[in-house]
């Protein structure tokens, strides 16, 4: 009998300890089991079914860039119409019917501030046209697999042809033709030429997009790493009729969080597309986070992990000259900390992101919007709140700076900068460059210039780190100095506490300790009295 009881009791204890392990923490979400994405490589330079060297249209001598584009369009008949509707061509958000949102509109930033409706010509050096935007679409900037300096090559070609040095001219024409015939999907170099160098230099704008992504390793980016999945940009930035997914202006980006298993035609590839909304092993608490915390938050512990990124730009310091000449000061790593034409800068490597609620759209201040110069103006800010079901806590690079504003009208100034237009970078004259810049924008300018603090945000989504580097719970779930200290309005275990309850609770515990101590001492001192009884 006794043995039977002991056996039963042991079974009971075993059941108590084992059963909770068997019940998954979230018994409901057990639908998705496809967790591990297949290793997909995207290395092929030639994914198309066509060999462009065999096309007669491309086997001719090209005198101009436009001639190449015409050759392209002789087959790709709709491409120009498609391009003319894209943000890459217009620099205007397709989601803004008024046509104000975008670099070519009234959106401003705290880098070169404004493209002055694309009349500040230096800004257009990143435009996908021949001769900036002047001479039509340049298909090759995005599609040629050869790194050709098109403008220089055509200039040289014309020069040597004219001067009768045909051998050299032929050689150049050979390079032009080779560039025009080696066609494929855009590779990292094509996209990176502009997107790794935004804001006037490498690593200036995005914290998660810089030249280190030309040939990253797995530690820098698990998806793009050449020793890893080796994704090219278009692996995730899917394209329909030249509309490339992935912009953030006012795109309601996170409306459709579907995996490709649910819908393989989703217009935008996000983490969930391949990894699903429950990417961690079943029962893992991490899976419960994905409704409110973006994958990027834990999996990009820091950005600019290889090259430093600019975090501060103070325009008010611009204009100092040495012997009447503009100059540049670099720090020990070769990053500029002062430029006469732009002001002073700060750079940082391995930067911890700042976290905000984000539903996939970023809003920007428009030129002409009133600001409060006594406070830091958020020139751009993420849209979203805890109550928004599409919003997640998301990591951002925040670029801070000081930029010129009109102290009478309290609006930011969009100065004309380019030397070609006799802008500030040539004249160092704030008055003239501001006046002409604001004229182009159709905005008033009082002639009174001050400098106001501003912030600009970039969502951080590239440079996804290997699993071993993902954030641990305690990066956020700690009482102080956690990563989410600025996010209010909800209770986070480990971070939050009810101070009054904690005080009362510990007071009660102390009182209990004191009480039993005194009672015990009382008994100790009255032992004698008991013996008398």
């Amino acid at each position, binding site marked *: 009998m006794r043995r039977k*009881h002991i056996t039963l*009791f042991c079974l*009971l*204890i075993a*059941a*108590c*300890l084992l*059963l*909770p*392990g068997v*019940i998954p*923490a*979230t018994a*409901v*979400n057990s639908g998705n089991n496809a967790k591990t994405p297949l290793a997909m490589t995207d290395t092929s330079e030639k994914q198309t079914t066509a060999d462009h060297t065999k096309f007669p249209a491309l086997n001719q001598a090209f005198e101009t860039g436009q001639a190449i584009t015409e050759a392209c369009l002789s087959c790709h008949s709709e491409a120009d119409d498609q391009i003319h509707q894209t943000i890459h061509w217009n620099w205007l958000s397709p989601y803004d019917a008024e046509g104000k949102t975008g670099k070519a509109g009234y959106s401003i930033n705290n880098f070169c501030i404004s493209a002055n409706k694309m009349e500040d010509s230096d800004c257009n050096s990143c435009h996908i046209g021949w001769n900036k935007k002047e001479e039509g679409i340049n298909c090759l900037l995005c599609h040629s697999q050869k790194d050709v300096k098109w403008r220089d090559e055509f200039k040289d070609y014309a020069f040597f042809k004219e001067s009768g040095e045909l051998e050299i001219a032929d050689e150049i024409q050979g390079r032009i033709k080779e560039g025009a015939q080696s066609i494929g999907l855009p590779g990292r170099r094509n996209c990176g030429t502009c997107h790794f160098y935004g804001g006037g230099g490498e690593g200036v704008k995005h914290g998660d997009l810089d030249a280190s992504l030309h040939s990253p390793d797995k530690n820098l980016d698990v998806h793009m790493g050449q020793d890893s999945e080796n994704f090219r940009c278009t692996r995730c930035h899917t394209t329909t009729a030249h509309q490339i997914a992935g912009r953030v202006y006012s795109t309601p980006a996170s409306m459709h969080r579907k995996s490709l298993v649910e819908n393989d035609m989703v217009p935008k590839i996000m983490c969930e597309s391949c990894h699903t909304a429950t990417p961690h092993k079943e029962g893992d*608490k991490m899976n*419960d986070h994905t*409704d409110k915390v973006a994958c990027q938050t834990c999996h990009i512990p820091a950005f600019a992990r290889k090259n430093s990124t600019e975090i501060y730009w103070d325009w008010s310091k611009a204009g100092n000259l040495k012997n009447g000449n503009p100059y540049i000061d670099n720090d020990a790593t070769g990053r500029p900390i002062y430029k006469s034409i732009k002001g002073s800068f700060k750079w940082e490597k391995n930067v911890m992101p700042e976290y905000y609620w984000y539903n996939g759209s970023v809003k920007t201040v428009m030129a002409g919007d009133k600001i409060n110069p006594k406070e830091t103006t958020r020139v751009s800010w993420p849209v979203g709140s805890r109550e928004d079901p599409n919003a997640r806590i998301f990591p951002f690079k925040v670029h801070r700076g000081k930029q010129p504003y009109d102290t009478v009208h309290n609006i930011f100034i969009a100065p004309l900068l380019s030397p070609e237009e006799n802008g500030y970078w040539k004249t160092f004259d704030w008055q003239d460059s501001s006046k002409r810049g604001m004229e182009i924008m159709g905005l008033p300018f009082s002639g009174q210039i001050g400098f106001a603090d501003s912030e600009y945000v970039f969502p951080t989504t590239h440079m996804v780190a290997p699993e071993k580097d993902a954030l*641990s*719970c*305690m990066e956020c*779930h*700690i*009482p102080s100095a956690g990563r989410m200290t600025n996010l209010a309005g*909800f*209770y986070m*275990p*480990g*971070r*939050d*506490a*009810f101070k009054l*309850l*904690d005080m*009362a*609770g*510990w007071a*009660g*515990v102390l009182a*209990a*300790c004191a*009480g*039993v101590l005194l*009672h*015990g001492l*009382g*008994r100790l001192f*009255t*032992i004698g*009295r*008991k*013996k*008398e*009884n």
Partner: protein
Amino acid sequence: MSHHTPDKMKRIYLYTRYERSWHWLQMVFIAVLLFTGLEIHGMYNILGFEEAVEIHNTVGIAWLIAFAFFIFWLFTTGEWKQYIPTTKKLFSVMHYYGFGIFMGRPHPVPKRKEAKHNPLQRLTYLGLAAALLPLQMVSGILYWTYNQWGEWGLSPSLTLGMVALVHMAIAFAILIFIIIHVYMTTTGHTVFAHIKAMVSGWEEVEKTVPIEDWEKAK
């Protein structure tokens, strides 16, 4: 501390094997839950948040299952009657612990097989077993199933803060209970008498004090 002579005492078998095992198992569960719970609350960093949460959840559910067995035992054995609250002699028990105990007076309601708990214990244990612990389990389960609240229609009227408040408040209450409870085990005829009884099942009680009918559980 004892003024009793052994011939005055008699040994009674007070706690069955299941009761004792349950008691000590529960002690271990609660100790682990308090330790990991306070770590999750950010009091210290020993196991790490993730580990603490995992252990806390597992042991919490284990406790819940063991508690269900305990309730089953209570009602099948009729032992639940030991928890029926009463105010009779409550005052004299309180008076004893506040005064008589220092004078060496005998306990007004000594333990008997049919009446394991004095009136103060009855109230305390009933409050614990019927109110505080179930409430702690419910708030714990809610905390654990936070992500399902939407499906169950609980959010947004219920917030995690409310649940955390209740869970934490009861945790403090349990911690305070433990301090007093452990101290009270030393108030037997020897310092370790009550603890020994909870190990062996046999409690030594005085022969002379008669048991009154109202005290009997059966």
